[in-house]
C-alpha cells in the first residue's frame, strides 16, 4: 500500500471527501468549464478578480478523488494571489506532476501544501486528473470559456 499512500495522502483524501469552495460564485467575473474527454471528469472554476488579485475562488463539477482534491486545494491556494502569481502557481504545479523527480524537490518547496500532489508523478494515467482544475483556472484567467486536458 506504500506508494498508494503516497498518492492518496490523508490531505488529498480529506479534500476529496469534504471539498472546500465547492459552490458557484455569484460574484465571479471569470469562469471556465474544464472537461477531460477521456474519463468524463468535469470542473467549472469560478474566480472573482479585482485589481488584478484573485479575491475569491470556487468550483463545481464531478470527478475522482484526485481531481476533486486538486480543485479544492487549488481554490484555497488562489485566494489573495495576483493574476501573475496564480499563473506562476499553475506552472509550478504542472512541473510538480509532470517533470522529472529530481526537480520535484525544488518545486515542492515553493508549492507549500500543494506539494502533496507529488505522488501523482508515479501514476502517469492520473496526471490529467490532478491538472484538470488548473488548466480550467488558467483558461478562466485568460478569458477562455473552456479547457480540456487534451
Amino acid at each position, binding site marked *: *500500500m506504500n506508494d*498508494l499512500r503516497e498518492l*492518496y495522502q490523508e490531505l488529498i483524501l480529506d479534500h476529496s471527501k469534504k471539498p472546500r469552495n465547492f459552490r458557484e460564485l455569484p460574484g465571479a467575473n471569470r469562469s471556465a468549464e474544464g472537461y477531460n474527454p*477521456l474519463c*468524463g471528469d*468535469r470542473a467549472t472554476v469560478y474566480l472573482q478578480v479585482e485589481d488584478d488579485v484573485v479575491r475569491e475562488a470556487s468550483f463545481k463539477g*464531478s470527478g475522482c478523488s484526485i481531481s476533486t482534491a486538486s480543485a479544492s486545494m487549488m481554490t484555497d491556494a488562489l485566494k489573495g494571489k495576483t493574476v501573475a502569481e496564480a499563473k506562476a502557481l499553475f506552472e509550478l504545479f504542472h512541473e510538480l506532476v509532470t517533470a522529472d523527480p529530481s526537480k520535484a524537490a525544488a518545486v515542492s518547496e515553493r508549492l507549500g501544501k500543494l506539494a502533496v500532489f507529488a505522488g501523482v508523478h508515479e501514476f502517469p*494515467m492520473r496526471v490529467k486528473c490532478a491538472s484538470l482544475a488548473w488548466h480550467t483556472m488558467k483558461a478562466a484567467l485568460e478569458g477562455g470559456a473552456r479547457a480540456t486536458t487534451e
Partner: protein
Amino acid sequence: MSVSPARATSGLDVEAVRREFPVLRETVNGHPLVYLDSAASAQKPQAVIDAERAVYEHYYSNIHRGVHRLSMLSTEAYEAARGKIRAFLGAASNREVVLLRGTTEAVNLVAQSYGRSHVKPGDEVLISGLEHHSNIVPWQLLCEEKGASLRVAPIDDRGEVDLAAFERLLTPRTKLVAVSHVSNALGTINPVARMSELAHAAGAVVLIDGAQAAPHLRVDVRAIGCDFYAFSGHKVYGPSATGALYGREALLAAMPPWQGGGDMIASVSFEKTTWNELPYKFEAGTPNVAGVIGLGAAIDWVGRVGLDAIAAHEHELLEYGTRLLSDLPGLRLVGTARRKAAVLSFVLEGVHPHDVGTVLDHDGIAVRTGHHCAQPVMDRYGIPATTRASLACFNTKQELDALVRGIHKVQELFA
C-alpha cells in the same frame, strides 16, 4: 470462497487455456496479472502471435498482385482467412465478407456507402440506448448530412432495450436500424433476430454491431437475419486493426464504393474507372495482410477451444462474480439484464471509478474505468462512469476473488 477445479463444469480446461497466453505470465507491481479488460481488447494466444510472425518470417508480400511466389503464398493465406471469417459468421459466400480495420470502420462504411445512397431528408435511423459511440456517431453524421433524424429505443433499469418502444419507433420512414448484439458497457445480449424481423417488417435494413458478441457467442448472420454484421478481430483474440463487415450480397453489389484506391478497381483510365467485384470493391489499398492471417489463426484457435465451452465457462464466471459483487455492501451492479455476457459493470458508493481502477491496478488487476465510449448509457443511470470487469475464456474464479479483495482494499482506503 470457493476453489475452482482446473476443469470447470463447462468442460473448459482453464489452466491449459491460460498456458497458451504468454502475457498471463507477466506480473504487475509484483502481482500476477489479473486481466479483466477483455471487452476493451482481448489478449493473444501463442497461436495467433506465431501465425503473424510466420507471415513476416517466411512469406510476407503484398497480395492480389505480383506473380512471384511470396505474393501467391500471402494471397492464399489472406483469402483462406477470409474463408474462416465467412464460416465464423455463418455467411453464404466470401463475396459477403469485407475485410476492414474493425467494427468502427465497418459501421462507417455502411453509413457512408449504403446510408448516403438510401437515406433521404425526413427519413429515420433507429438505434438503441445501449450503443457504443461508434454505433451512434456515424449515424449522426449521416443524419446531419441528409436531413434525417436519429431515433433511439430506450433501455430499462436492467439495461434491456424496451422492445415495445423499439417496435413503436419503427415507421415507414425508418430506413436503417443499427443495434449492438451485446452491449459493451453493460453486457446485455439483445434479441437481435427478433429486432431484425421487426425492422424488416417495417421495411428497414439492419446492421448489427457484433464487436462484443463475437468473442462470446456463436454468431450466425443467416439465423439472425440481419443485412449487415460488423465485428473486430482484436476482441476475438486476434490482432488489432483487423475485422470484417458481413453484408448481404445483393445489398453490397448495389452499393457505391466507399474509398477509392488500388485493389478496389477493375480498370482505371482518366475518363472512366470500373469497380472490382465483391468484396474487393470495398477494400482499397494494401490491407493488414499479416493481421488478417493472424485473425484467421485466432478463429481457428477459438474453434479448437470451442465457443460453446467458452460461453459456458464465462457464464459460470459471470454468475459467480455477480453473486460475489451483489454481496458487497456499498456496491451497485449496473446492467442486470436477464440475458447477459461477460461484463460486470459497477459503482462503489463514495469512490470514483478512477480511484477504484488505480487501487486495483496496484494489485495487478486490470479493469476499465470510465464511460466505456457509451456516455448515453452512463447518462441513463445518472452516473459519470463505472468500473467494468470483463471476462474472457482464460479468467478464473480465483481472479474474481482477487477482484473482491481489491475492492475491499479500495473501501478501506476511502472509508
